């Protein structure tokens, strides 16, 4: 089933970040292997950060993916709103992955600043995809102010710890009517599959692929993990049991 996000239709439910890739060649191969159709990029001073010396936009064009600017590194609503507006001017898109960091060690979001920025950007016509914590109440507030999705962290950015609080991710899924995209903390394919099994509509990840020893192989794994998790979520899994339930009937057993 296609994935509706911000009024657009996607086939892939995997969104890829570009941070951490060793070079643009590896990044391009990973993007292609992942099957993603939506890729997030940061805004930085020309000629400083990786990718900002040119070639990144052309790479995304070649891959035929849609660009999703982000406000990575912003610490206040004011700063994030400005970066979103600069990104809109630079890339001709009103989509933004809204990120407002509240703590340096965990890079967890500042919920107060995030909500403030989301409100302002929605009012300014943006399609806002906020990176949020796994707090079901904050997720609902973000959906209520008009965000096009909510993107809770499974665990801190780049930690590879997976989904720390599966119960909260389920509560978030039940509490909002917009897509839920698990963003941050994914370490390996089973983490992405779990996120989808919990009912998430998509997964956004970067480091798990870009910093893997073999990014292209991991991108392929993530592609299948997201698909597998989605299928499993809809397939009606068996109940967990304390004891065994034989899968082979007793009838017709030989007497030996």
């Amino acid at each position: 089933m296609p994935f509706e996000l911000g009024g657009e239709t996607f086939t892939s439910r995997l969104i890829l970040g570009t941070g951490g890739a060793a070079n643009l060649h590896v990044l391009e191969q990973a993007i292609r292997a992942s099957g993603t159709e939506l890729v997030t990029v940061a805004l930085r001073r020309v000629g400083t950060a990786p990718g900002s010396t040119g070639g990144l936009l052309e790479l995304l064009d070649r891959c035929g993916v849609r660009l999703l600017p982000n406000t990575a590194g912003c610490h206040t609503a004011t700063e994030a709103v400005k970066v979103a507006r600069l990104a809109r001017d630079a890339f001709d898109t009103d989509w933004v992955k809204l990120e407002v960091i509240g703590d340096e060690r965990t890079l967890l979001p500042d919920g107060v600043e995030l909500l403030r920025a989301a409100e302002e950007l929605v009012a300014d016509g943006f399609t806002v995809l906020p990176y949020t914590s796994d707090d079901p109440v904050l997720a609902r507030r973000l959906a209520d102010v008009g965000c096009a999705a909510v993107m809770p962290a499974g665990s801190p950015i780049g930690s590879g710890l997976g989904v720390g609080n599966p119960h909260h991710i389920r509560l978030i899924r039940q509490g909002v009517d917009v897509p839920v995209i698990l963003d941050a903390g994914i370490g390996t394919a089973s983490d992405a599959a779990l996120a989808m099994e919990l009912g998430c509509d998509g997964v956004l990840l970067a480091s798990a692929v870009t910093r893997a020893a073999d990014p292209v192989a991991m991108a392929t794994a993530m592609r299948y993990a997201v698909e597998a998790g989605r299928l499993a979520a809809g397939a009606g899994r068996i109940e967990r049991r304390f004891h065994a339930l034989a899968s082979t009937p007793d009838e017709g057993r030989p007497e030996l």
Partner: protein
Amino acid sequence: MELTVNGAGRSVAADASVADLVRDIVPHPRGVAVAVNGEVVPRTGWPARMLRDGDRVEVLTAAQGG
């Protein structure tokens, strides 16, 4: 006049506009955005926006991240 561009000092002609400065820094300004003294200057306003001595200019583009 003296500007601060992306955190570093830079001398430009006295009558330089934002468009002139961007042209000096990037040959093809696709995917570039500019802020002057912390305020966004939209692309359409670059030619008309004259720079002033001491302006702090950020010239930004896509980078890997997020």
